């Protein structure tokens, strides 16, 4: 699955504290952030974002669907989210 990726129309920048910034602009990278670098173990939005990333990587949905779900998950995890298009 990780051999495939689908780019987003715009990056999402997440901040946690003063020293941590995650810049994410593709579906595979979002999946890896959720899997390995996420501050909360579980959550509705996180599960939805995982599912959206898998659908997009499999070609069953559009990349920005994963992006929107990822932003919801970031808000759930209390990241400060920076994005032009929300």
């Amino acid at each position, binding site marked *: 699955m*990780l051999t495939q990726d689908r780019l987003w129309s715009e990056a999402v920048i997440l901040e946690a504290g003063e020293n941590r*910034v995650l810049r994410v*602009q593709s579906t595979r*990278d979002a999946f890896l952030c959720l899997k390995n670098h996420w501050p909360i173990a579980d959550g509705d939005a996180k599960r939805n974002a995982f599912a959206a990333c898998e659908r997009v990587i499999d070609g069953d949905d559009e990349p920005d669907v994963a992006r929107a779900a990822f932003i919801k998950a970031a808000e759930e995890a209390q990241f400060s989210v920076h994005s032009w298009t929300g």
Partner: protein
Amino acid sequence: MAGHEDKMVRVRDVMSRQVFTVSPTDTAQSVARLMAETGVGAVPVETPGVGTILGIVTDRDIVTSVVARGLSSSTAVFEFMTVAAESCEEDDSLLLAAQKMHDLRIRRLVVVNGKRHAAGIVALADISRVNPELGGLVLEGINRPAPVDTQLEGMSTC
């Protein structure tokens, strides 16, 4: 460099077929996350939507060209990748791939198909696995002293 039986071994016989590619606009941190997850130390850079291989990024590139220079982890891949990665083809002999690694002092070659899409990666470790002697010769070549590029004034090449 190798025995007769090794001439029949082809790159396709030893290469890794699972290739994780990245886009030129991906960032150093996203490539690092991919490397951490997959355990690979080099990823080909491809044109998004086209698949043509443009270059390669290694873990060493991230350390020496981004971290050591104090650049942001958001630095785009195209700013520090090696452009026009050295490549070979699946049908090339292992000896040819080994010779290329030896001459260019590199440990990996991107294996490309006829459209210059990534078909795999062949590493020195793959060669050493099937032919330790050949792998050792390549390693010796990689570690040999670098040639002096700048010619001393008054000296000729012959």
